């Protein structure tokens, strides 16, 4: 779709990512929405539609949040697209404004993830009984393949975790705000060979909300959504996030992330070299490297070298996951994509303090998850 009108981010709000046993999902979502509306100086009835990303919240998650804050009668649509749910909700919200159907749209994402290995209705009961619903094992196989088919080493996976944890120390909304060493990551328990515990993100809780507007904010820097694209998988890739039972022995097919990124770069009129910072999906450390390759930040097959050269670190020309990534924030599925978008908005506004990427003007946010949907969003100041 070609945008006929520009879409601006007028308000942002986050509920920190972590574990909040005494706080219901609706209350967590309300914190993020209240902050986004306050920043945009928009009150009840001040937006035309709401799109809400949520996976584990059950019926009408978004409606319940808005009921708690005051209903206005506009449409509220709950969106599920796995880890890309928030990105898919954003894409729908942007389209409403770009096509002129709405002036202001609220987009939120919220989640309270179950503890332990995540149960997913994606897997049929027989597949659970056979032990084939072991999500980290699929990540492990993908990591093994990445290491076999390129020069990515186990130390590279550990370094990704060390780097993002170091970034997360400066993010007050992250769950794990502590430094880890290479030795600690390599020495943490093996979950599924080759992945160690500190190479995997933890499912948790949190919320994020943005208020989109057809008009730029009256004061401060205006951040525009230059592109938002969602793509799903093609048949054949047995190691895609959609974790199918079987696939074709055929390699070289574009992945959902490659398709979403290509479409987003075309829509925004920029390329990977133009990005000042990137927030990408790092469900596990190998996924982070693969994401960097699929987004064009590193050549295909060059991800190991990309890590060893320190690319993506805060001192590099193109920092990746300055927020700390999912590895230090944790992953509340419905909220994670919008939290990445908010990190980019804050970076482009120059409001990130100790983790600020100097002079950032263009950023990309990327999620990919079960379905398998990938979302690429490009924001420009």
């Amino acid at each position, binding site marked *: 779709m070609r945008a006929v009108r520009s879409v601006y981010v007028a308000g942002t709000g986050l509920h920190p990512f972590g574990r909040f046993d005494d706080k219901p999902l609706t209350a967590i979502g309300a914190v993020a929405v209240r902050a986004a509306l306050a920043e945009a100086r928009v009150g009840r009835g001040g937006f035309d539609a709401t799109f809400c990303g949520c996976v584990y919240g059950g019926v009408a998650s978004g409606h319940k949040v808005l009921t708690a804050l005051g209903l206005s009668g506009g449409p509220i649509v709950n969106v599920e697209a796995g880890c890309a749910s928030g990105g898919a909700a954003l894409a729908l919200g942007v389209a409403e404004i770009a096509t002129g159907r709405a002036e202001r749209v609220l987009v939120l994402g919220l989640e309270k993830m179950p503890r332990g290995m995540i149960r997913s209705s994606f897997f049929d009961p027989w597949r659970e009984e056979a032990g*084939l619903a072991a999500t980290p094992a699929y990540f492990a196989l993908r990591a093994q393949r990445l290491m076999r088919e390129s020069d990515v080493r186990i130390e590279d996976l550990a370094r990704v975790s060390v780097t993002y944890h170091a970034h997360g120390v400066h993010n007050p909304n992250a769950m794990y705000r502590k430094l880890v060493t290479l030795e600690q990551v390599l020495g943490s328990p093996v*979950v599924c*060979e080759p992945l160690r515990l500190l190479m995997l993100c933890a499912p948790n809780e949190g919320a994020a909300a943005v208020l989109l507007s057809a008009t730029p904010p009256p004061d401060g820097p205006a951040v525009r959504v230059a592109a938002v694209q969602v793509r799903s998988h093609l048949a054949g890739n047995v190691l895609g996030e959609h974790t199918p039972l079987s696939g074709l022995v055929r390699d070289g097919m574009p992945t959902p992330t490659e398709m979403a990124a290509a479409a987003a770069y075309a829509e925004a009129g920029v390329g990977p070299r133009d990005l000042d910072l990137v927030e990408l999906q790092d469900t596990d450390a190998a996924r982070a490297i693969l994401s960097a390759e699929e987004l064009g930040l590193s050549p295909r097959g060059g991800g190991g070298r990309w890590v060893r050269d320190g690319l993506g670190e805060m001192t590099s020309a193109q920092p990746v996951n300055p927020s700390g990534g999912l590895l230090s924030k944790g992953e509340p599925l419905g909220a994670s994509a919008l939290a990445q978008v908010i990190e980019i908005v804050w970076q482009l506004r120059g409001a990130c303090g100790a983790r600020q990427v100097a002079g950032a003007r263009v950023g990309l946010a990327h999620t990919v998850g079960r379905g398998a949907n990938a979302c690429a969003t490009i924001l420009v100041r």
Partner: protein
Amino acid sequence: MGGSATLFLHTAVATRPPGYRGALPYGFGIVELPEGLRVVTRLTEADPAKLRHGQAMRLVLEPLHDDDGVPVVSYAYAPVAG
């Protein structure tokens, strides 16, 4: 389809995944069938160090658990001996 395959990727699962009542740890991987398919499967070998990429595998039935005295089994792939 015949029962032969080659090992494409392999790991092991040591933490009980949702809905699973069988033994731990167990092998988990992807095999390639000569018909041109890759299939996600249990592996009868739970030690990743004892498996290697490309080795010959064969289709077997593996017991999972008993359901009121009725054995429940799954397909799995086992290394071809020798």
